[in-house]
């Protein structure tokens, strides 16, 4: 009996750290499946359309979450994601308008190739991220404050850009980017690229090192300031990309887009096992965290449960994930003391 327990323990230890979260995802999906048969009389999972919508819905959050995960691993935080979605959506859309529409934002800049608005949108996010990162690295103010400032300012900039009016009549070339499986493909590509960067490159190693022990990283000769600026810029650029996808999917852009997306992205990262204390977390975990958010959202819609409950449950799950993280952290620290 004890031998069996030991075997199980060593087997369990060999599993990737994402296994627990994956079980949660599976358990949630099964719960909705059972509740579905009881209350709605149909399957939750065996419905291609629902699964596609579920993944589509979380793709935009997922793209932001990949950036936010890197920031949190570095023991920082980025609250500006949602506002940057609005800003870059509106910047991208303003450069993607049809010439057939007479009241375009830039009447001389219509019918441009779709890459121009895409690059402009990502660029807007990148610049905003660069500003946040520079503020954090150069002035030493907490990331929470710097990105909170960006959250407010970027939303303001998005409203100022076109006097608060929405931007629509976008070219087909541009709006195609948000249709079908494109958002999912973009999200998965982004996740894969940054999984590789975080796992196999100097960039990733230094991000983990700074989050784990900034002083150690500094005395080891890592250029902390430069690295922080790079990571926040990447997070900003990814929020920008999320904005481009949002505008393209909605076929228009307005300053109220992406409200609270940053919180969903942070939730996805934290649920996925990224430690708010820094140093620990993986993109694969965030991928599962994003899917968990997707399952909750579609599950509640599927069961026709009031949307308010959905937010309440989401809130509880986030707090639960952080409590779990704190517990894990304490356990690690106590282990240190024992020795």
């Amino acid at each position: 009996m004890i031998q069996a327990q030991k075997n199980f323990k060593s087997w369990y230890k060999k599993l990737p750290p994402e296994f627990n979260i994956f079980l949660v995802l599976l358990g949630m999906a099964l719960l909705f499946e059972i509740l579905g048969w009881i209350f709605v009389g149909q399957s939750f999972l065996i419905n291609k359309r629902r699964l596609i919508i579920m993944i589509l819905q979380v793709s935009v959050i997922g793209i932001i979450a990949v950036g936010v995960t890197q920031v949190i691993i570095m023991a920082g935080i980025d609250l500006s994601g949602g506002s940057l979605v609005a800003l870059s959506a509106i910047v991208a859309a303003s450069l993607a308008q049809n010439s057939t529409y007479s009241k375009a934002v830039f009447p001389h800049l219509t019918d441009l190739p779709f890459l121009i608005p895409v690059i402009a949108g990502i660029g807007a996010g990148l610049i905003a991220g660069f500003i946040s990162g520079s503020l954090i690295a150069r002035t030493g103010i907490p990331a929470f404050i710097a990105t909170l400032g960006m959250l407010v300012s970027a939303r303001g900039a998005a409203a100022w850009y076109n006097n608060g009016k929405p931007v629509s009549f976008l070219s087909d070339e541009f709006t195609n980017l948000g249709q079908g499986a494109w958002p999912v493909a973009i999200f998965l590509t982004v996740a894969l690229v940054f999984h590789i960067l975080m796992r196999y490159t100097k960039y990733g190693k230094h991000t983990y090192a700074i989050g784990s022990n900034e002083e150690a990283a500094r005395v080891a000769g890592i250029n902390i300031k430069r690295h922080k600026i790079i990571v926040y810029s990447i997070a900003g650029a990814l929020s920008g990309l999320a904005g481009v996808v949002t505008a393209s999917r909605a076929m228009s852009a307005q300053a109220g887009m992406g409200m609270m997306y940053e919180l969903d992205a942070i939730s996805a990262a934290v649920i996925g096992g990224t430690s708010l204390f820094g140093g620990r977390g993986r993109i694969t975990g965030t991928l599962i965290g994003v899917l968990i958010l997707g399952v909750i959202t579609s599950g509640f819609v599927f069961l026709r449960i009031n949307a308010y409950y959905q937010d309440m449950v989401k809130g509880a799950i986030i707090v639960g994930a952080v409590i779990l993280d704190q517990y894990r952290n304490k356990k690690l620290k106590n282990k240190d003391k024992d020795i």
Partner: protein
Amino acid sequence: MSSNQQNIILKTEGLTKHYGGVRALQDADFSLTEGEHVAIVGDNGAGKSTFIRQVTGVEIPTSGNIYFDGNLVDFKTPADAKEAGIETVYQNLALADDLDVPSNIFLGKEETYFNLGPFSFLNEKKMYKKSIDVLAKTGIKIPNLKIAMSNMSGGQRQCVAVSRSAGFASKLIIMDEPTAALGVQETSQVENIIKNLKEHGIPLIVISHNLRQVFDLVDKIWVFRQGKIVGCVETSKSSTNEIVSLITGVKLGVEEEASFI
């Protein structure tokens, strides 16, 4: 530069550091010759760690000159000092607890396949193999290099921190309280590493509170008191009593069997 200065590896002239109104270090004139092992001793707040921080580029001195390897140097960051050949083991270990052994040993000087700036791909195999060699050189046994540092004992962590510096051929190694938190066995392991460095002729500065260890290991002792260097004595011509009276500034009334821990 005169010929007898050529074998001086590190020299400071009038090195001074003020933190606001606090004079942490004043007019420190220090020198270290090729292959020499010295200790820096002194009471808490005597300026030992401050001195090290100026020499290793962690802080920028208020005034004074530092000569390293015959040149006037001006380290702006720890990376500059490292590049010049100064390796440091810090008091607080300076390990990234969430990373494994090879990542810590190669932190800031990772092996890569080809250079793509920050996005260079890491050559993990090479780092793993080199880590084994580095640890073997220092005689430390760590069963699994691929687990996070936070899962290791204090001794293993210290040994990784020490061998990180000692394992790379460098011109000077500085250790700040390398055995302060260690048990007897682990202390002797670290002392063995230091003796090993002596055999290889690598100069060393060690900060220590343990006078027994200091007398055992080094050639010269520099004594700091209240931000100033108050003496430099050769261990073979000195006694614990002399050092203690230099540390405390009390010449008389020191008991025969006084020891300083």
